[in-house]
């Protein structure tokens, strides 16, 4: 059953993204929000983990949280989709359930 995972923690300080990637079933979607958006950027100590996970999972990132933190979309890992809040709602609708990795 398709599932939406939300991650709102920085991958540099907390283990939430790593746990999400370890325990999300193949074909799931992962939406990075709040401080979680730093996980979407390339050239970091967390990028390899995310790029590897993208073989099995679809990654999204909340645009308004990127913009708030001054992260230019040009710095995102290729293949991560930027969504707005209505895109967040659509992801929640299109998946059967939502798990927040708090």
């Amino acid at each position: 059953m398709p599932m939406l995972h939300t991650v709102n923690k920085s991958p540099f300080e907390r283990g939430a993204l790593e746990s999400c990637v370890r325990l999300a079933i193949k074909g799931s979607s992962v939406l990075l929000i709040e401080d979680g958006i730093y996980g979407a950027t390339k050239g970091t100590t967390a990028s390899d983990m995310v790029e590897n996970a993208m073989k099995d999972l679809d990654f999204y990132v909340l645009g308004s949280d990127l913009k708030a933190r001054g992260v230019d979309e040009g710095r995102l890992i290729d293949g991560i989709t930027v969504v707005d809040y209505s895109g967040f709602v659509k992801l929640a609708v299109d998946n059967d359930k939502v798990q927040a990795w708090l």
Partner: protein
Amino acid sequence: MSDTKKFLFVNRKAPYGTIYAWESLEVILISAAFEQDVSLVFVDDGVFQIAKGQDTSDLGIKNFSPTYNALGDYDINKIYIEKESLEARGLTVDDLLKLTYEDEDDDWAEKDSIHVVSSAELVEIMDQQDVVLSF
């Protein structure tokens, strides 16, 4: 039973440092009254919640770990612990509370509620749920 859903409570935080573990347990106990299909997962630092031998007398904080023993009486007996989380923390199942229930379909035999599972097995278990609450 059209109103029965599979509820999963995912516990990822250590006890006492923050209140999430305790307030999660309060939700779990309430959920028992709603006749839903309830499962618990303890993963990452959540495995510390069910460590045995907790004694909070020096802190003045209430020791809520005995309450986990009541889960079996509330028909909450699907408790999954991630093996990899235990290993990373130098723990084995012997370091945990022994949680059991009496199986009414098997002449009230006492059975273990705790199931230590691999990450791969846990992925499948989490996939089967309808509602996921995280603490």
